[in-house]
């Protein structure tokens, strides 16, 4: 398969995988908090988390870029620790992608948490379980489908992002040139044939990922481990 920018494909997959792990580590606790520990001001947190759904990627990318710049606290801390600027690095892409894809994980997971009968958690605590044990043994397994869906959506969304990557990462081969940018480059260079192949590859990959979630994974989630 000539013409496909395999370096960009590999970079995109690596980026999406790393971002997805971070998204689950950060997103599941946020979703739990939104679902079970509601405060009067919870809606504000919900709005902030959901912002990337409505903001143009360039706006988000611009603010992330500013936040990473050498004059910002984050940029200065990073420079002191890593010895170089944060912007236009792979790490910058990871941070920006986490922010950008967060709602795609938090929303399905929070909605899965909310669908769990609260009496199940209460029953667990009257049976002597700590809140942590209740979370691990009852809440997480029963929210499995939502977490699965969040993981796939977060992965696919990170794979497909374009505007934020361009703003924060630029277009450095092997560092920040992801597949979506490679396709853009190929079209700009009138390499329509190559762009077509790359695009088709991404299409098939995304379709396969979604099919796995909607098919085997969903059926498998009914066969859950025993106590």
């Amino acid at each position, binding site marked *: 398969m000539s013409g496909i920018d395999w370096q960009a494909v590999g970079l995109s997959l690596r980026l999406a995988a790393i971002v997805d792990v971070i998204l689950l580590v950060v997103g599941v606790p946020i979703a739990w908090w939104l679902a079970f520990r509601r405060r009067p001001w919870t809606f504000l947190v919900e709005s902030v988390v959901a912002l990337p759904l409505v903001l143009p990627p360039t706006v988000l990318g611009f603010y992330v870029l500013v936040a990473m710049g050498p004059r910002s606290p984050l940029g200065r801390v990073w420079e002191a620790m890593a010895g170089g600027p944060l912007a236009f690095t792979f790490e910058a892409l990871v941070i920006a992608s986490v922010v950008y894809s967060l709602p795609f994980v938090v929303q399905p997971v929070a909605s899965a948490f909310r669908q769990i*009968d609260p*009496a*199940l958690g*209460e*029953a*667990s*605590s*009257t*049976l*002597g*379980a*700590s809140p942590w044990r209740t979370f691990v*043994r*009852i809440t997480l*397994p*029963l929210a499995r489908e939502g977490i699965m869906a969040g993981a796939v959506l977060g992965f696919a969304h990170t794979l497909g992002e374009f505007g934020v990557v361009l703003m924060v990462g630029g277009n450095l081969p092997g560092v920040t040139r992801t597949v979506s940018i490679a396709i853009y480059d190929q079209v700009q260079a009138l390499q329509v044939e190559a762009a077509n192949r790359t695009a088709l590859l991404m299409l098939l990959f995304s379709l396969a990922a979604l099919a796995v979630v909607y098919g085997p994974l969903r059926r498998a989630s009914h066969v*859950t481990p*025993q*106590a």
Partner: protein
Amino acid sequence: MAGPLHASVRAQMSEVFTLDVSVDLPPGITILFGASGSGKSTLLRAIAGLARPDAGRIAIGDRVLFDTATGVDLPPQARRVGYVFQQLALFPHFTVRGNLEYGVAALPPAERTRRVEEVARRFHIDRLMERRPARLSGGERQRVALARALVTDPDLLLLDEPLSALDYATQSRIIEDLRAWNAAHGIPVLYVTHAHREVFALGERCVVLDHGRVLAVGTPHEVIDLPAHETIAQIAGFENLFTATVTARRPSNGVMQCRLGESLSELEVPLGMADVGGSVRLAIRAGDILLAVEEPRGLSARNVLRGTLTSLTREGPTVSARVDAGEPFIVHLTPGAVEALHLMVPMPVWLVLKTHSCRVVSL
């Protein structure tokens, strides 16, 4: 032996409704009886630590679970209080065995297995151990929920209307198993219901709750069969409630004569505190009234009222007849009796009431 439960609880439920109760329960089954919205579930949740009362003290024997005076407030998982939820809350992703093992996971495996299998045998679910809750019948689910709460060997068991959805035979069998279990363990059991049928099947003691207050405490017979209070009569299923005027008192016979409302119908009822000319409330169960299509003679029952049958309504296995006898009476009949008597609406009928079927209640 864990000792008796003491619970005095105050909780503001809404602007107009405050739960304010104090109960002391010895080991054994106590029925908490009251209409929906009387605060029963709130009291249970407060005892289990699932809801935080504004003030109060909850203790089992010497073990304090909650005390606003000393700032004690144990989380639910530290209270050793078994709770059977109305909707049962079985863990759908575990088998029956998984549900039972959940509360004893900290025990060594051999001891855990022994405990789980013993409680499964006692509640007759030992053949269902590898099934998931979705594949159990209603009665089986109740048994699993009960066994799951009891396998942890709690100091107190709370049941929130767990059997109300079951047929009577299934209910009785589960109640028998619960009784047998508690004969060996002797913990206080607080059983919430609003069905008076369950009160008699279960109760050694009965606490009646109304609008967040304790209205009466006693045996089911004292509290429900001889209701001292109109509210209890209503929630205990006395379908007929009338205002009557005392027309004569015969203390030597232990009875008095009352006139119903504005009508001319008179009833002989057990002697109450009211004087002649005073007003009383009478409560009569629809099932305690006989209905005749001819004027009956030669009966020991002292009260025969003439009236008109105004309607017949089928309600499951009983037929509810309305009879205008000065006041509107509700009488429960069997469908067979309706047929045999060729009852039709309207037709003249006679109501027969024993003196002691008429309860004098206070407002």
